[in-house]
């Protein structure tokens, strides 16, 4: 579904050339859930910009759905860290707009939005403006909007980073249950190792400045995922492995600021 081929990205700033991504290659198969973890400032946002087509890589290619899309936008469904709902559109109106921009007919977009808002229990808010929703509810709408979009690849950019721990846990469970009913290809960026282990099929570990893929971990847990996963010995072992890998890198990061 997604193939990133040897992508590098350098920025030329006042203080010389900064290499942000170096020779990054990755794949996300149809219906696969892949997570990217890495220290902050490891170029994950830049990688998303390149995959989403907002920025052209210095070298390398991006293929979505078997077609080269390097530097082209509109091929991904996107869920940013901030819910990014337009404040002047109702909840249903926000979902509808994103679907129509992606090419869905207006009537169908509206019907889908209302139908799914009902399924996730937010139908009472269909005609409300986003500011009356809590942070967690806004993120649910934001996820639903990405899930309903016709693009078959979803990019989730630290979607729960701004939520408190309790809400975050609930949201992970909720997202997983929804995704398991409606499998899409997902690439998730997260700071949380537990989140990555709980949600994904595969985890890619990035180092920082420049970002290089340092490790790939196939998550062995069967689906649907159980909640007691946290207590599984393999879970703890994998968590320790990723943690050590990131820590090795963290020391370096401090030097770079």
């Amino acid at each position, binding site marked *: 579904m997604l193939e990133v081929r040897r992508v590098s990205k350098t920025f030329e700033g006042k203080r010389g050339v900064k290499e942000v991504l170096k020779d990054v290659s990755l794949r996300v198969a149809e219906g696969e859930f892949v997570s990217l973890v890495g220290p902050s400032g490891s170029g994950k946002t830049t990688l998303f910009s390149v995959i989403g087509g907002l920025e052209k890589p210095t070298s390398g290619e991006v293929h979505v759905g078997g077609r080269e899309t390097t530097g082209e936008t509109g091929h*991904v469904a996107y869920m940013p860290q901030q819910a990014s709902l337009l404040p*002047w559109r109702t909840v249903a109106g926000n979902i509808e707009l994103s679907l129509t921009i992606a090419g869905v007919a207006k009537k169908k977009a509206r019907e889908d939005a209302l139908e799914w808002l009902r399924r996730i229990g937010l139908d009472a808010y269909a005609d409300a403006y986003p500011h009356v929703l809590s942070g967690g509810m806004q993120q649910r709408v934001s996820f639903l909007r990405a899930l309903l979009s016709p693009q078959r690849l979803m990019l989730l950019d630290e979607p729960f980073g701004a939520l408190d721990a309790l809400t975050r846990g609930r949201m992970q469970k909720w997202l997983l249950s929804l995704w398991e009913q409606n499998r899409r290809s997902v690439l998730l960026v997260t700071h949380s190792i537990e989140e990555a282990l709980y949600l994904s099929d595969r985890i890619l570990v990035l180092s920082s400045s420049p970002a290089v893929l340092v490790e790939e971990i196939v998550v062995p847990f069967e689906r649907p995922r159980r909640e007691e996963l946290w207590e599984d010995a393999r879970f703890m072992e994998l968590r320790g492995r990723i943690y050590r890998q990131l820590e090795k890198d963290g020391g370096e990061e401090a030097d770079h600021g």
Partner: protein
Amino acid sequence: MDNNANRWSRIWPPVVVLAALLGIWQAAVAFSLVEEWIVPSPAGVVQEAMKPNVWPRLMEHAGATIRLAVIGFAGGSAAGFVLAALLHLLPGVRRGVYPLLILSQSVPIVILAPLMTMLFGYGLLPKLLLVVLVCFFPVCVAMLGGLAGTDEGLRRYMRMIGSGKWTLFWKLELPGAAQSMFSGLKIAASYSVLSASIAEMLAPKLGLGGYMVLSTKGFMPERSFAAAILIIIVSLALFGLVALAEKLVIRWRPAKEEVKRDA
């Protein structure tokens, strides 16, 4: 209920202050602290305005002023809106024009009034042009600011899912600029009445501004005051209408109380 009580508690203090000031004014005249032929009393002004030979003429002049202000306001605002949109979509031109527009904010445009009269005579055209110009700048500058101030997160999201330049403009930037646009429109609304009155003073044939000048020259201070008060009322009314339109259009904004709670 709560909200209503709240509103009243906000309205009555300034009303009391205003009534007190009017009372002091009335008393000052009544006790001859000031001469009535220089400063008329509030009651005297109302009495004079209500006279059957004065009231119809006041209304006629008020009508002319309102017409001038409203047409100029509409034309100037529309021009400001269109130019702002154009400049926003043509960043190259914007770089050249925007600094000048900002500069124009500190130019008292009403000083152009005598020039307009000199160039275009005493008809409706020079007056209208002045009002149009005065309304044009604040709307244009506020709109440009609003269009440029689009939230970067929202822009990133909208571009990522494939919005082109036009979709970005119509669905994101323009609605996002509505708040700023109304700030500009409110300034323009008050300026329009101000500049219309000044234009009328220079060519005092029709309009409250002209009536005021003629009454002053004819030593009829009651009528001057009546005209001045009407100008103020018209100005406040136009401002109020724009504020009302803003309330009707921008319904998505969180109520003020909520904002406070968040902060």
